């Protein structure tokens, strides 16, 4: 479990990912309770999932990501706030050829480290579908967004945040 007092970002928002990321740096194997839920960081992360492949943009950092293996499916469910236990059970039912708990923990730790998800209090109870791709989840990081996109204002969502 992640236990810490909330920190605040420069934008004044509660910043749960900070405490999670701190733990990632000190613990090699991050374990989450089966009831633990996450959500995407509001106002800075946008994502789209097509055919179980996710593309995620952190608008605040200007970095974008794609997923491989069953990463897109995991992302969909993590972003929907499905408890980790339900996600693990669905993966186990699909009998993938990788060690589920370790791979899921690594993947979640990376999402936290990249400031894409934070702890949530509520969300969907069940996964929406079975995972279609059985390979180990991976997050691919791209840092060339500024080379490729017209970044003139308005920024997508950041300027809606309160001071």
């Amino acid at each position: 479990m992640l236990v810490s007092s909330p920190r605040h970002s420069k934008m004044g928002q509660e910043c749960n990912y900070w405490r999670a990321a701190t733990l990632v740096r000190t613990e090699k194997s991050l374990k989450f309770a089966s009831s633990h839920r996450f959500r995407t960081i509001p106002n800075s992360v946008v994502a789209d999932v097509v055919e179980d492949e996710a593309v995620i943009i952190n608008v605040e950092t200007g970095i974008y990501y794609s997923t491989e293996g069953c990463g897109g499916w995991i992302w969909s469910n993590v972003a929907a706030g499905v408890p980790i236990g339900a996600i693990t059970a669905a993966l186990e039912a699909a009998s993938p050829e990788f060690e589920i708990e370790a791979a899921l923990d690594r993947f979640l730790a990376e999402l936290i480290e990249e400031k894409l998800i934070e702890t949530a209090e509520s969300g969907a109870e069940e996964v929406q579908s079975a995972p279609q791709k059985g390979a180990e989840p991976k997050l691919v990081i791209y840092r060339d967004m500024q080379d490729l996109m017209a970044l003139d204002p308005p920024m997508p969502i950041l300027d809606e945040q309160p001071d």
Partner: protein
Amino acid sequence: MSGRLARFAQGYALPGPELKRLLRIALGIGEDAHSPESLRWALARIGDSERGLRWLMPLLAATNGKAEGLSPDIQAKLQAARLYEKQRSQRFDEIAASAIAKIGETSAPPLISRGLALARTAYPCREARHCHDLDLLVREMTGARAAMQQTGFAAIPEEAGLRHASGMTARLHLSPFPGDGGHPLDSAIWERAAPFELAGAPVLLAAPTDVLLHTILLPSWLVAGHATWIVDAHFALAADSIEWEALDRLPAPDRLFAARALSLLAEEFSAPVPAELLARPVKLPFGEVLESLKRMARWKGRKALLREGLAALMG
């Protein structure tokens, strides 16, 4: 490209071979437009900040995002570009809608044409058209500017434009074209416009024919043209309700510009322009040309272009 058209293209700030190929790939024109090699070639150039072509990225993503044989990194780039622009354009339209609604509270609803109008009606999806700033046609300037300023826009010092708190810029216009007014489209564009809704705000949408004319004629007023007009015209021409006889009602120089622009679009970008229209000679009564030149004397770029166009026609 024929010699006459090539000379005209120079004056009209039309694309050279490389940009032409890029535009064709972004528009999905030609057999090799969707090949991984073409997309890699296009991405390398769009990513070059010196070229100022990043506005093409969302269109490239919309037309080629599902092309076969793409490497995962190219797919991710295209998807990310589209996703980013989707979110951005949603924010853009919300800000625009807020301003449009406020203007409409005290006067006639504003009118949208060209980029934003085409983005909402003709492009494959809204995010395929990157809108750099918001252009609105209004009936009355002072009240419209005041209304804009109530929705987070502020006047830009020493410029006619307005800037929103988000950084987004906007320009209000009384006429579709720069200059001192008097163009037939000034009133016709309002008369033929239809009610439309932009993110919940009532606005007027220029008729497809007027959007096309506005798109292909505006560059003739600009000293430094921008290739967006080609892409916009490509989608404007896809409308099935273009009234081609409207070309005959244009003033003399505009008939020339429209004819040359349509020729180029048909020849280089496979635009669906009726063959009989392209084959028809453009009649330019001398008196009408002279009168137009006098009226537009202070628009140096347009005058120069007209000179180029006349030379091309006679060439």
